[in-house]
């Protein structure tokens, strides 16, 4: 019998933690709750969660700081709860290592979809990667020959497109900011050139998406970056923020 995945919820609003505890438990997760960053870190020591959901704006230690502190000691998935008008700090949190975000107010189905995606990533990363090939969802990459197979048909990519796809696959089901992608593929000098990235993503989409206008693999996170879903089966609406 599998153990229930453990989720640590951090928020200074008691009513929100009350609802999240109840709702996540109902969906078969084991939940613990902390009202602020320090308490969360203490709890982390005794009871290692599989995933952390944290609010961004909290007194004393805010969500951004908590992300940094958590990332220093673990690679576990982190989802942040942000409010509209917190764009800058949200991107900072993602850059600091948060995997995903949800905008308040959110429907539970939205949060749950992101939780599932984040846990999927955590589960698959160690297993699906060997030194010579990577298999993820519909994709298979031969790392030695630099070839790509999508649903068992070969796709011909330019070197940069290949690098981009590889990075997407290695960081699947996670929100990747423009800055992260540009830094990883093109290096530090290009981190401001989002237009450049857009062009490349467009080209990659043309080659791997059945309908580039409604992408299933490379999903856009408006103003933030992109998210890669290797299965292409998750409905795009599952990740749509309300409002």
């Amino acid at each position, binding site marked *: 019998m599998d153990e229930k995945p453990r989720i640590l919820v951090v928020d200074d*609003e008691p*009513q*929100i933690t*009350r*609802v*999240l505890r*109840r*709702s996540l*438990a*109902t*969906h*078969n997760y084991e939940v613990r709750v902390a009202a602020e960053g320090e308490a969360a870190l203490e709890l982390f020591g005794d009871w290692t969660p599989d995933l952390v959901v944290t609010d961004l*704006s*909290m*007194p004393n230690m*805010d969500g951004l700081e908590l992300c940094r502190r958590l990332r220093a000691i673990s690679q576990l998935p982190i989802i942040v*709860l942000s*409010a*509209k*008008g*917190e764009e*800058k*700090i949200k991107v900072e949190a993602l850059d600091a290592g948060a995997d995903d975000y949800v905008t*308040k*107010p*959110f*429907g*539970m*189905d939205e*949060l749950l979809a992101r939780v599932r995606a984040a846990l999927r990533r955590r589960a698959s990363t160690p297993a699906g990667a060997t030194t010579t090939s990577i298999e993820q969802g519909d994709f298979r990459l031969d790392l030695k020959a630099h070839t790509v197979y999508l649903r068992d048909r070969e796709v011909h990519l330019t070197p940069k497109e290949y690098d981009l796809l590889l990075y997407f696959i290695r960081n699947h089901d996670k929100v990747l900011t423009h800055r992260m992608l540009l830094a990883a593929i093109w290096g530090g000098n290009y981190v401001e050139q989002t237009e450049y990235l857009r062009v490349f993503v467009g080209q990659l989409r043309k080659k791997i998406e059945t309908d580039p206008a409604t992408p299933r693999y490379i999903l856009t996170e408006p103003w933030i970056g992109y998210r890669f879903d290797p299965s292409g089966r998750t409905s795009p609406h599952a990740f749509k923020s309300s409002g």
Partner: protein
Amino acid sequence: MVDLNQSFMKALTGFAKKRGAGYLLAVLGIAAVVAALAPFNNRINTTTVALALLLVVLFTAALWGSRPALVASVLGMLCFNFFFLPPVGTFTIQDPQNWVALTAFFITAITAGQLSARAQRRAEEAVAGRREIERLYEELRAAFERASHAEALRQSERLKSALLDAVTHDLRTPLTSIKASATTLLDEYNGAGRELIMLDAEGRQELLEVIDEEADRLNRFIENLVELARIEAGEMSLRRRWGAVDEIISTALTRAEAITRQHKVEVEIEREMPSVRVDARAVAEIVYTLVDNAAKYSPAGTRIKVVAKRAPEQMIEIAVEDEGCGIPEELRERVFDKFFRATYNMMADSNRPAGIGMGLTIARGIVEAHGGRIWIEDGPGGCGTRIAFTVPVGDEEPTDAEQVAE
């Protein structure tokens, strides 16, 4: 006849101001002096003549500048020679002394004329210079005003933006709980067979409670905003009724039960408190706000004490004491400011809106509308906070309007 004279004079002065006129009048001036003095040639001194002519030169220089003065000097010299130096009627000079006199006259005339003109010019320049300085000063002042106006505008924009953030934060927080609860409950109904939803009766109850409580919270927030707006506009209408102080306090504490669960609440009411004629709902609101603040800003397990007693001058005093960290003296006036929390956060330049903070402002509005006072002191024993307010006992008979409104 008068009009004709006036316009003639105007034309004349207008003409006189022109440069060209200067030359003409210089010549006329010299001619006039010569004509006046020539007949008396035998009896008057050449010095007199020289000085008279010199006067014309000076006059000309002062009024029309250096060039007409030069003309006057030259003409003056020639006339001096022709009409006054023997032999009269010729340009020759018999007496060598008169050569000296003539030359001296000439040089003096030229120099005096030039100096006079220069002085005049300097004076005009000084005036122009001063005018220029005044103009520049005006411009500088106007620019400075504009800059500080722009700065004030920017400050008020930033304040508006901070307030907007604070308001939306206070509105979105309860909405978040409501939406999360509602969608969880809906999930159960919509099944979708994705996973087993184990929502039992207790769980359902809790989620519905949250929806209810948070809806109340939203409502309260909106009411506070409206009340604050009314206080600002001076449109507070109080309904004063005779009532008991202990009832008001117990109403407030009942309402505050949920938030004071983690504190020890004590009540101390002086014996034989008079009935008071106040707006009971509003005063209870004040007590609730003070107790709410005490609970928020003091650690769990500490004591919150509500005290009521008589005060001098037909007032009663109600105070709420807590054992928290206290409010520093320099902030004790400012916490009553509208939107203090939001502006405090803005000054600290935090990107975290922590709600608006209207409670104390509204409390003060109510207290002052009753004719009382509200202030902050150190808590008993020197630590913690004590917020006290007074309201008058009241002694008028109820007005007709108040009786009807019942």
